[in-house]
């Protein structure tokens, strides 16, 4: 499995489109949005510039993680996944490696936006806080990796890409990763609070403020994770059964 993991990581590192989309996008957006926020504004319990930093780091991470899912769809369509299934690599390891690689593809965005926040807005966190933030923003992408795999195994490439994009856009906008849910009307804000994207960013906001995750936040994330895992398992089984 290690060989396959390395193989996939090298391929990921070589795909510049992904990096462009998931790193440059949020960095530029952060530079623009954080200038609009007043220096002393508070959002989600932390300074606005920090809240936006976490939100956009998460935005880029979700973008990166989900886009690996649509790559799975292409690999399936060209027969590469069948080709792997006639090697000794057990299928569950292929899927696990893919899930791990897709969560890792969210990490560059978190690092890049974090560095931007540090340089542009002098975001001051202790080394431990930075590390905790990075680890949480990485671990929190698990439900999105599963959603990406569900889309990748479930849909043909022509469909996977737009569905992926819509899922990404809907979840990240409504979950308050771009514009904080504080500015939303009541109904939308309640919706936002129920989404995994909001609860994912909440992990980061609370960690920056030195607070533990909320039970309700973890609960919502767990429910979505189970839901997406079930969907991914179903899509995987369907994709292999009908060939």
């Amino acid at each position, binding site marked *: 499995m*290690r*060989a*396959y993991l390395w*193989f996939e990581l*090298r*391929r990921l590192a*070589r*795909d510049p489109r992904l990096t462009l989309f998931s790193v440059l996008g949020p960095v530029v957006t952060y530079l623009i949005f954080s200038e609009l926020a007043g220096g002393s504004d508070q959002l989600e319990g932390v300074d606005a510039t920090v809240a936006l930093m976490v939100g956009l780091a998460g935005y880029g991470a979700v973008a990166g993680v989900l886009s690996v899912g649509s790559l799975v769809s292409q*690999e399936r*369509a*060209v*027969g*590469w996944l*069948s*080709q792997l*299934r*006639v*090697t*000794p*690599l*057990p299928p569950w390891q292929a899927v696990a490696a893919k899930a791990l690689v897709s969560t890792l593809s969210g990490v560059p965005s978190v690092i890049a936006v974090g560095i931007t926040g540090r340089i542009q807005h002098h975001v001051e966190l202790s080394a431990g806080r930075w590390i905790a933030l990075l680890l949480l923003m990485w671990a929190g992408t698990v439900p999105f990796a599963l959603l990406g795999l569900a889309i990748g195994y479930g849909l043909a490439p022509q469909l996977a890409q737009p569905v992926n994009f819509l899922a990404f856009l809907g979840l990240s906008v409504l979950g308050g990763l771009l514009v904080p849910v504080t500015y939303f009307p009541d109904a939308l804000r309640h919706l936002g609070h129920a989404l995994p994207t909001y609860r994912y960013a909440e992990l980061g906001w609370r960690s920056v403020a030195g607070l533990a995750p909320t039970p309700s936040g973890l609960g919502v994330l767990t429910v979505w994770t189970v839901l997406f895992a079930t969907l991914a398992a179903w899509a995987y089984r369907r994709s*292999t*059964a009908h*060939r």
Partner: protein
Amino acid sequence: MDDIVVRLTGLTRRFGPVRAVDGLDLAVARGTTLALLGPNGAGKTTAISMMLGLTQPDAGTVALFGRTPTEAVRAGRVGAMLQDSGVVPTATVREVVELARALYPRPLATDRILAMAGLADRAGRRLDKLSGGEAQRARFAFALAGAPDLLVLDEPTAAMDVAARQAFWSAIHRYAAEGRTVVFTTHQLHEADEFADRVVVLAAGRVVADGPPAQIRALAGGRTVAFDAAGAAPEGLELLPGVRSVQVRGDRVVLTTDDADATVLALAAGRGFRNLEVSAALEAAFLTLTAIGSEH
């Protein structure tokens, strides 16, 4: 028993009302290079897919080395080149070969794999930058890398040019000479004829002939007799001596016959002909055989 590498028993797979593979029985002995020959739609790919455990049969069983296909694949005894199976972009030839080597317990040396696939000078190239034939050879390298005891190739040469084909088949020949078993599919009779030591002809999901290449040719012994239709209806031609089938191709009538001499003599005595052409095309034998199969 131990010397039977592949054993298919009553293998059947339906797609809706169509029986893609219909009660296929086959035992392949160790060291055989077997061609699964048939026209498009004969069920070759479906049979291969079931043989490898990628498709579940509706009925019948598959045993590879006396085990289930999944077990044999996990044990690293099987390498396969699937039809149209793509290559992943952004990986290089060497990376794909090294991946395959890492997945199998006793792989071949990288240099040998690259040489056998004719890709020694393409090792650092990205797969999406290869020509169609090179990409096909990269997939061959991937299938071969683990030194599998059973190598399964589904239409392996479709995208290769003539020189690449020759190199490919001589590599296969050397590989098989080490006591390994090779099963490949083709719809080209000459490939089966030249490179296999056993040919199984498949038509409409059934075996219609099975034997050494020479025997397959002799079985049908077919020749074609072609001449201008010249506006006359082809009625009654199927009654001429030796004729097995009558086809009208544009302005030409093509008879497939067991006895070209008798057919031509009867033609000359009867309706006559213009632009007569008699050929011993292997394709005729193939058509004859598969036509028999389709009548089931």
